[in-house]
């Protein structure tokens, strides 16, 4: 909207709180026109919250946003677009069945008086647009036939076409090949030439040094540093991102010659996993670290039987399984807490009690019927134990806050006697107070003999709880560490290799 005269976007002292979690705490930054501004930080550092505020999906609690010298308010995605802010996510917001050209011109197709499309004009202008940004593409190709990187470029092109002043890119290179990354950077450089500002969110430090002009680092919702690229280094950045005092570890008894409870051998899936192998001992907490897209969730789902395994097998206490489903795994003593609470965790038509007892209903059966009184008693027990904020166990699960829902999902599995529990981001969205409870509970479970596969991006949780740490990237295990013998930096570096 202001593309040619635009100078900067000033984010001033933004704060945003969710029930129990401070997602952003007094964050400020200045994004300049014609420059690439990198935003770094671990998962949960506050990056996506900031983006959502800019995109008009969330509203800020405190702080101001200035477009050049004008204070602006972004109350809806429409506002954000009108202001010229365009966010390019991992999930594309294009029409998959349409061609590139049709998507570019989505707002207004070039037509004659009668509404008949002028295809030639559409595709010609489209080609010109792509020349301008320096990217070669078949403009009459259907979006669903394009690769992810090409789809991204189309989104960016669409932004330019809609006269965006700021393009926000959220982890743009996580699924790109080196060649595609080069092409993307080429496009970005062309954008810079056209005075467009770019907010570039990533974990990848080497990319920052290739493309960025300024770097902002967030950690745990707070602004840690704001520096021009030539005044920083890899060491400084890593330290900014993870450099925190690790809280005291939980007391972990040494696992010496404990029996093997799970063996995973050459586990491969069609989509991501490549020959993953490891062992898990009884009572061991095995942590898995990795960036988004590393394959931790895929590994968890493959072991649990939710996704099909194309090669390899698992052994639970010596019993081998090569083709199996979740029902089988649950019967053999494995439980699973998903990271996608809303989509895969809660059953929205059921209340808290029903959600909590779902995987263990056979234990509540009297003859043919479910014993509701027993259900209520046990639910109330866990509501108390985890301090779940709810007036009663009959409350509809959708009315609970995210953190409380997470607690319910965790308790779900504690009602069964499990040998192994797989936890995927178990403390996501849980407030600090409850976090400690959850972690301490996991520790207790392990002490009593339960084995834990802990997928997490929280360095803290990882180091304080795990016995061993596996680092994953691109569907493989890249490194294995003993938790008492590794630094956060080493872990992090292994995850970006």
């Amino acid at each position: 909207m202001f593309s040619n005269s635009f100078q900067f976007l000033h984010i001033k002292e933004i704060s945003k709180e969710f029930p129990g979690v401070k997602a952003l705490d007094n964050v400020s930054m200045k994004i300049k026109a014609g420059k690439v501004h990198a935003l770094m930080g671990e998962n949960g550092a506050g990056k996506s919250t900031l983006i959502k505020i800019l995109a008009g999906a969330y509203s800020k609690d405190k702080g101001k946003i200035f477009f050049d010298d004008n204070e602006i308010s972004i109350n809806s995605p429409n506002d954000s677009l009108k202001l010229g802010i365009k966010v390019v996510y991992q999930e594309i917001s294009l029409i998959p069945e349409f061609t590139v050209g049709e998507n570019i011109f989505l707002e207004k197709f070039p037509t004659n008086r009668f509404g008949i499309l002028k295809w030639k004009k559409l595709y010609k202008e489209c080609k010109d647009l792509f020349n301008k940004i320096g990217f070669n593409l078949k403009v009459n190709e259907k979006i669903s036939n394009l690769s992810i990187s090409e789809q991204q470029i189309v989104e960016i092109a669409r932004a330019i076409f809609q006269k965006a002043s700021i393009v926000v890119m959220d982890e743009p290179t996580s699924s790109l090949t080196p060649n595609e990354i080069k092409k993307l950077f080429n496009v970005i450089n062309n954008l810079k030439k056209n005075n467009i500002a770019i907010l570039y969110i990533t974990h990848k430090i080497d990319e920052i040094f290739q493309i960025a002009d300024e770097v902002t680092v967030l950690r745990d919702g707070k602004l840690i540093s704001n520096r021009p690229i030539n005044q920083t280094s890899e060491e400084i950045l890593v330290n900014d991102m993870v450099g925190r005092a690790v809280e005291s570890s939980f007391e972990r008894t040494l696992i010496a010659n404990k029996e093997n409870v799970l063996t995973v051998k050459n586990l491969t899936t069609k989509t991501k996993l490549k020959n993953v192998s490891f062992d898990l001992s009884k009572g061991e907490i095995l942590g898995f670290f990795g960036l988004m897209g590393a394959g931790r969730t895929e590994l968890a789902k493959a072991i649990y039987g939710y996704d099909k395994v194309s090669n390899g097998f698992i052994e639970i206490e010596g019993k081998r399984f090569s083709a199996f489903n979740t029902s089988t795994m649950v019967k053999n003593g494995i439980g699973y807490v998903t990271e996608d609470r809303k989509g895969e965790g809660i059953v929205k038509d059921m209340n808290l009690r029903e959600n909590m007892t779902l995987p263990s209903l056979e234990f509540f059966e009297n003859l043919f019927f479910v014993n509701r009184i027993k259900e209520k008693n046990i639910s109330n027990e866990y509501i108390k134990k985890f301090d779940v904020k709810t007036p009663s166990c009959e409350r509809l699960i959708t009315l609970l806050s995210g953190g409380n829902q997470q607690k319910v999902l965790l308790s779900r599995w504690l009602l069964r006697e499990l040998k192994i529990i797989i936890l995927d981001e178990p403390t996501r969205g849980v407030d600090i107070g409850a976090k400690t409870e959850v972690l301490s509970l996991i520790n207790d479970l392990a002490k009593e003999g339960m084995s834990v596969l802990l997928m997490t991006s929280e360095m803290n949780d990882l180091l304080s709880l795990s016995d061993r740490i596996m680092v994953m990237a691109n569907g493989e295990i890249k490194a294995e560490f003993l938790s008492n013998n590794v630094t956060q930096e080493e872990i992090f570096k292994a995850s970006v290799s």
Partner: protein
Amino acid sequence: MIKTIKNNETILFFIFIILCIFLSIYNPQFYSIQNINSILRSSSTVMIVAFGMTILLTSGEVDLSVGALMSFVTVIVMDVINITGSVVLGFIAVFLFCLFIGLINGFVRTILNVNSLIATLAMMLILQGSVYVYSMAAIYNTHLIPFFTFIGQGFVFKIPMPVIIMLFILPFFVLFLNFTRFGRYFTAIGSNSDAASLSGINNKKFKIIGFVTTSLLVGISGIILASLMDTGQQGSAKGFELIVIAAVLLGGTSFKGGSGTIVGTILGILILKVIDNGIILMGISQEFQLVVPGVILIIAVYFDNLRKAQDV
């Protein structure tokens, strides 16, 4: 959702009571034993199948082939009994056939992964055609076995036999959804099939069970219908599936899955049948029996949507 459903069921119940009172005042014939029996009898066949349809819809599936299957069942049962002279063999034949169809529906849905609307629509076409391959002509009752005729046309303590059969089945289904473990599973599968699977529920198994149960219930209804008509008639239950689905939706079960109510279904059917009956008693043209359910369905769902939006 429990609260909303309870509200829904209460409203339906009141509507039902009001209708009955109104019609009783308008025409005292309404509460005559004959009339009540007539209403109950015609409700029975619909209810039996609707129990299965409710469970299916709760798990997020649908079965459009129930009408065609029911017609086929009338033909099979009459033919087998005519030929073998044994009612038991007739029942076994129906059982096996319905089991077979239910399994196919289930497998096409779970293994071939075809949308249940399409899969059961195709099955409906197949059954509609196949019944004529089996027999071009209607099959009349030549066995004249009294027990068979009793099923549809008999009375036990002045209550029509179909109603007795329905009452035998009813308690099981009333309790099934809300009070048994499997009922919960069906609800979970319909509400969020991923979450259900991740809780260790075998989605495929239960969906197949849903289809088979519905088909078997159709078998029972079909036998009753054959007994009532004294004939095996190829097109006897045409359009039946729409009535069943409309009644179930009217009763408050959501077609998106995850929220089902047998009590609602029962009330929905009773309301529709009472209205049907009222139309005749009030001397209104019989054809209104088609118009009224349509209007009620739309209005009911509209208000249901409004209420649900308010609740959240």
